[in-house]
């Protein structure tokens, strides 16, 4: 898989320009050219003195196992956060006060982030996992006419299975 440069860490020492056999690292916008990058080459990753370049993995192992009890407890809390997000959003949508709206939006966002994290720790962390594939397949099986089938199908075809 291709190399990726973290622009916040890049200190412009330019070693990647010297070692890259294809010129993939030499771009105007600093984004490494995926089309030229040789998968697994690693030359720029090893040469970079500021540790700004890393290889994006192509394969991932299965997720860490979770017990039913942990999943149930995480989901119970996540569901509470989901409802709090929905209420805060409804408040933000209905208030006439700009400050109240701002605060309600912050409460909604915070709850969404907590719910995401809690559900990540209940078997839905890795996009490539079997659990996510099952979820996508279930969505397609139960699809109503307005469901964006193409999005679920794209994900099932593009995300590699875990190793």
């Amino acid at each position, binding site marked *: 898989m291709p190399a990726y440069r973290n622009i916040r860490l890049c200190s412009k020492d330019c070693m990647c320009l010297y070692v890259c056999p294809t010129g993939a690292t030499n771009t105007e916008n600093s984004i490494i050219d995926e089309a030229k990058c040789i998968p697994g080459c690693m030359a720029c990753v090893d040469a970079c003195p500021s540790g700004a370049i890393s290889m994006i993995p192509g394969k991932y192992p299965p997720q860490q196992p979770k017990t039913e*009890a942990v999943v149930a407890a995480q989901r119970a809390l996540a569901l509470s956060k989901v409802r709090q997000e929905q209420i805060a959003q409804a408040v933000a949508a209905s208030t006439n006060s700009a400050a109240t709206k701002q605060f309600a939006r912050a409460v909604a966002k915070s709850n969404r982030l*907590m719910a995401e994290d809690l559900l990540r720790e209940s078997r839905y962390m890795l996009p490539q996992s079997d659990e996510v594939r099952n979820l996508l397949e279930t969505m397609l099986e139960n699809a109503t006419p307005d469901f964006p089938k193409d999005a679920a199908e794209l994900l099932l075809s593009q995300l590699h299975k875990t190793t």
Partner: protein
Amino acid sequence: MRKIKCSICGYVYDKPVGIQGKGVASGTKWEDIPDDFKCPRCTAPKSVFKPLEEAEVSPSAVTKIDNIPALSLKELSAGEVSVICSSLAKGCEKQRLLIASEAFNRLSDYFKSKTSVESGKTLDTVAKMLGNDIAEGFSIAKATAQNDMDKGALRSLVWSEKVSAMLETLLVRFAEEGDVMLENNNIYVCDICGFVFVDQTPVGICPVCKVPNFKILEMERK
């Protein structure tokens, strides 16, 4: 003297030192610090500070360990699926899978459009639900995660519990002060853990998840 610790970010008040630059002189007794005191690290109110010994133990997680109610797994609701999909969109973005990320966001939006809120709910409802999460949900979930030795789940619970505690203090303040709370203040939300704080300037790192502050975003007023 007992040391006093912020239960949200872990800041410890040291009486002989006071708080430099915040108007708390060295030697000031904790009791003599005004009630509108804010934690110099995370802006939490004075009420969340606990004596150090007390703050170190998590009694709820220990005492309830034999008393975990059996929760059953039911089908995921549209709201949960929406959240799972927005989380997976972020996961794909981290892996630089930008087309997949966009597809997960579309699914997230679709399931979000299938959710509804009962009318008559207010921010007071949110505060009550938060209080319930803090009193029960987190205790049960932390005991379960400890029991099953799931450090990943425990990590998410420790973060969310702190974020919830801070949100609750802000909702209580907002119920009392209303929009005045936000006069001359900004609202910042950590884009990683959801920590919210109300202040004039951002903090250096997130007091909960420790991410650097370029990932702590100001919530615009519009």
